C-alpha cells in the first residue's frame, strides 16, 4: 500500500491501529471459509469519528474499504477480492456504552463480542436472544451486517428483530444515525432495517441500539434420538403443528453426531441416525416443564427411540457446546467443508432432506446435515478436499443442485450466512430480476463510487 496512505491512516488511528507487515496481511486474508485475498492494509479504528476519517480518505483515493468483525463469516464477506484494499476491522470498538434497564435497551459499539453483550445484560435480568453458534467469536456489527440468527430464533427471531437504531458511516464519510429508543417509529423509511444483512456494502456500522427482553427464568432442554432421519424431520412438524413453540429445535444427522462425539466426548448416541435438541423456556416453571414433557411425548409418538431431559446446567451446557461445534467438528472428516444454509418452509423439511441425500449419492461426496430444523434452516455441509480439482468441480455442481432443491421447494439460498462472494452466482436467480435491480440501485445510490466492500453480493458492476 502507498506509504502516503499508510501515513495518513496512522495519523487517524495511531501507529498501533495500522497493520501492514506481510504477516498481518496474511492473517487478515481469510474468514470462516476457504476463500482468500490479501488486503493492502488493515486499520483498527476505536471511534465513529476515526471511522469517518478513514472512509473519507478511502473515498478520496478511491480505495476499496472492507468492513470486518471477527472474521467468522461463512460467505467470504470480509475477504478482500482484487488488490489494494483496506480492511476496516472493528474488534477494538468493543465497548458497551449504555444499558438502559427501564427501557430495556443496550447501546454498544460494533466490535463487541455478542456473547459478552449477552452476559453483561443478563447480569441485570435482561436478555438479548439472538444466538448464532459463533456467539463467542463474532461481533454485533458482523451479526447485524449478516442478520445473524441462531437456534433461539425459532421463538425469538433474528438480529434484525432487535435493532432499534444504528450509527453508520456512509460511503462519503458522513455519519448517519437511525432510529432510537421508542419501539414504534414510522418517521420515514426504516433505514435501520436497510443495514441488516447489508454485508458491509452500504455503510460501516459503528454503533447499535438493541432491544432487550426480560430474561426467561426457567429453561428445560431435551434430546431425542431417532433411528431414522425422516422420523426426526417429521417430529419437527408434529411438534410445531401441535401448538408448541419451543425456544429451539435443532437437528443433527449421524455423521454430525459422530464428529461431535469424537471432539467433545459427551456420551452422545453415535448409533442414532438423528438427534433433535429441543429447548423450552419461560417465566413460569410448571408451564416450561409441561411444554418439554409434551415435546417428549410427541417425539416418542413420531418414532423417537429415546428422549432425555438435561438434569442440570452442566448437562445443558454440554449439549449446546456440542451443537455449537457441529460445523467445525465435521472438519475431522475432510480437509475442507462447504456449509450451506438453505431455508425452506418447514413443511418441506422431509422433502429437502430426501433431495440432499440424493444429491450426495449422485455425486459421490458426503453431505452432512444439521441445523435449525424448527425454522426450516438447514446446514448441508459438503465434505471434500479442495486440492483435488475433480472434487472441487463436483462441489460446484452440488452447490447448484442444493440451491435448486431449496428454491424449487419455495425456500431461499441463505437463512443466515449471507451472499458475500460464495453465493453471488445464484443471487439473481434466487431473488428475481426486479428485486435484484432494486437492490443494486440502492447500492448505487448509497455508494456511487463502489468503494464499500466491492464485489460482494452483486456479481457484475457497471
Amino acid at each position, binding site marked *: 500500500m502507498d506509504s502516503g496512505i499508510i501515513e495518513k491512516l496512522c495519523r487517524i488511528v495511531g501507529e498501533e491501529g495500522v497493520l501492514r507487515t*506481510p504477516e498481518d496481511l*496474511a*492473517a487478515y486474508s481469510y474468514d470462516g471459509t476457504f476463500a482468500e485475498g490479501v488486503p493492502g492494509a488493515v486499520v483498527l479504528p476505536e471511534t465513529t469519528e476515526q471511522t469517518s476519517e478513514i472512509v473519507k480518505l478511502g473515498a478520496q483515493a478511491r480505495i476499496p474499504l472492507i468492513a470486518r468483525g471477527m472474521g467468522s463469516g461463512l460467505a467470504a464477506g470480509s475477504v478482500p477480492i482484487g488488490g489494494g484494499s483496506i480492511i476496516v476491522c472493528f474488534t477494538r470498538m468493543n465497548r458497551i456504552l449504555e444499558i438502559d434497564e427501564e427501557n430495556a435497551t443496550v447501546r454498544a459499539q460494533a466490535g463487541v463480542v455478542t456473547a459478552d453483550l449477552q452476559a453483561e445484560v443478563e447480569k441485570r435480568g435482561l436478555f438479548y436472544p439472538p444466538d448464532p453458534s459463533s456467539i463467542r467469536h463474532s461481533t454485533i456489527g458482523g451479526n447485524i451486517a449478516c442478520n445473524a440468527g441462531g437456534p433461539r430464533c425459532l421463538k425469538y427471531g433474528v438480529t434484525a428483530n432487535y435493532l432499534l437504531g444504528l450509527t453508520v458511516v456512509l460511503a462519503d464519510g458522513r455519519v448517519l444515525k437511525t432510529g432510537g429508543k421508542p419501539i414504534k417509529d414510522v418517521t420515514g423509511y426504516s433505514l435501520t432495517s436497510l443495514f441488516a444483512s447489508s454485508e458491509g456494502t452500504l455503510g460501516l456500522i459503528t454503533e447499535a441500539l438493541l432491544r432487550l427482553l426480560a430474561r426467561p427464568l426457567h429453561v428445560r432442554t431435551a434430546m431425542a434420538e431417532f433411528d431414522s432421519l425422516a422420523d426426526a424431520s417429521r417430529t419437527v412438524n408434529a411438534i410445531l403443528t401441535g401448538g408448541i413453540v419451543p425456544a429451539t429445535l435443532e437437528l443433527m444427522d449421524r455423521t454430525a453426531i459422530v464428529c461431535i462425539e469424537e471432539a467433545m466426548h459427551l456420551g452422545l448416541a453415535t448409533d442414532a441416525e438423528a438427534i433433535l435438541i429441543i429447548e423450552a423456556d419461560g417465566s413460569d416453571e410448571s408451564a416450561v416443564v409441561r411444554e418439554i414433557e409434551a415435546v417428549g411425548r410427541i417425539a416418542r409418538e413420531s418414532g423417537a427411540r429415546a428422549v432425555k431431559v438435561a438434569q442440570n446446567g452442566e448437562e445443558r451446557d454440554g449439549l449446546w457446546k456440542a451443537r455449537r461445534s457441529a460445523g*467445525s467438528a465435521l472438519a475431522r472428516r475432510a480437509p475442507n467443508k462447504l456449509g450451506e444454509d438453505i431455508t425452506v418452509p418447514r413443511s418441506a423439511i422431509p422433502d429437502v432432506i430426501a433431495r440432499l441425500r440424493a444429491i450426495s449419492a449422485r455425486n459421490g461426496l458426503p453431505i452432512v446435515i444439521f441445523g435449525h430444523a424448527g425454522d426450516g434452516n438447514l446446514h448441508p455441509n459438503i465434505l471434500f478436499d479442495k486440492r483435488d480439482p475433480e472434487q472441487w468441480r463436483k462441489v460446484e455442481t452440488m452447490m447448484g443442485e442444493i440451491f435448486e432443491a431449496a428454491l424449487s421447494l419455495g425456500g431461499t439460498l441463505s437463512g443466515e450466512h449471507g451472499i458475500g462472494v460464495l453465493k453471488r452466482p445464484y443471487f439473481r436467480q434466487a431473488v428475481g430480476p426486479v428485486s435484484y435491480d432494486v437492490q443494486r440501485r440502492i447500492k448505487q445510490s448509497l455508494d456511487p463510487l463502489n468503494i464499500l466492500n466491492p464485489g460482494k453480493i452483486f456479481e457484475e458492476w457497471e
Partner: protein
Amino acid sequence: MELEKPQESSYLYCIRCGLCLAVCPTYREYLKETTSPRGRVALTRKGLEGKLELSPNLFEQMYGCFACMACNDVCPVGIRPADLALSMRQVEEQKHPKRWKQIVFKGLLSKAGRLELATLPLRLYEKLGVRRLVYWLRLDRLLPDRIRDLEAMLPRIPQRPLRRVLPEITEAHGEARYRVGYFLGCAQSLLFAEQSAATLRVLARNGCTVITPKEIECCGMPARGYGRMDLVRSQAMRNIAAFERRDVDVIVTDCATCGSMLKEYDSLFRDDPEWKERAAAFRSKVRDVSEFLAEIPLEKPSGRIESRVTYHDPCHLRRAQKVWREPRKILSLIDGLEFVELPEADWCCGSAGSQLITHYETSKKVLDRKLDHIEETGADTVASGCPGCRMQLETGLKRRGKPVRVVHPVALLDEAYGGVDGQRNH
C-alpha cells in the same frame, strides 16, 4: 539436513472457524488476528507452504504465544495451535541457531549444580540482607518497571537449594505403603524450597517412602519453549535412566510445568526403538502431586485454617494434564477453609515460562485481568500448583499492595497437618 517441522495434517484441516479466538489471552489483549491461534495456524501453513517468507516477524508471532493451550482444548477439529507455535520455534532454531540458548539450556539448565552456582549471587543478595535494604530505602522505586517486577518476582531465595539439603530417601511415617519417586524441579528446589519440603512431609505422612534422585536434570520445558528439541531429548533420557535405577511405583512432582513435560516424554521417543518403551514406562508413572494424593487414602488434617481461599488453574495442570478437580478436593479437606471459585480460573495468568521477561507488556495486561478477578473473590489466599504462576501472581499482588498470600495447595494441607511441628509430633 532435513528440517524437523510440523506435519501437514497438523494445520491443513484448520477450517478457520474462529472458535479458538474466544479463549486466547493474546488475542483478547490485542484484538487482532495476527496474535490469535487461528492466525498462528494460518502463518504456519503459509510459511511452510512457501506462500509467506519464514521471516523473523513470523517467528515472533510464535514466541508471542503463551502456550496456555486453551486453543488446543477448544478446537473441535483437533488442531493444536499451541503445539504448532512451539514446533515453529523449533523450525526457527534449526534455521538460525542462537548461541545464547546453547549456553543457557545446555550449559546452565542441564546441570542442576551449575544453575545453583549461577543463582549464588541472588542467594547472597538475600542472605546479606541487601534485599531488605533495597526495600527499606525504597530503592526499588528507582528501578524501571520491568526490572522492578523481575526483582520483586523472585521469591525470597532460600540460602541453600533444597536439592542440597534433602536426603535421597525420606522415610514414610508409619507403615510404608508406596514407593514414590520425587522429581524435584529447578524452580521448586531453588525458589520454593519450603513449599517442596511441605510436599515431602505430606507424602511421608500419608505412607510414602519418598526417593529424590539428585542427579536429575531440567525436565526440558525451557529448552522446548525455545525450540531446542535435541536438548529436550537428551535431558529426558538422563531423567528416565535416573528413575529406572530407583525402581519406584510412581513419579510425583509438585511443579505443574515439570509434570506436563514429563508426561510428554513418551511422545519424544515415538520413533526411537531403543527409548520408546522406557519412555512409555516412565510416562505411565508420572503424577502431579495433587493427582497422586487424590488417588490414595489421605489422613484428615486435624488443624484448621481460617482463610478465604481461591484457586488459580495453571495451564500446565488444567490444560496439559486435565488436573483441576484434584487440587480443589485437597483444599476441601481442610476445616475452617472457605473456598471461593475464581472467575475465569482456567485463563492463563500471563507467566507462561519466560514470557514475563520477553513479552512484558502482554504478560502484564493478562495478569491484570487475573488480579482483578482475585480481588473480586475477596480471598486472602490464592493457591496454585505451579511455581511460575505463583511468582507471577505474587509479583502482581505485591505491586498492587494487596496482602494476599500465594501458595501451593499441598503446602496448605501441610499447614493443616501442623507443618514442621506436626511432623515432629506425629
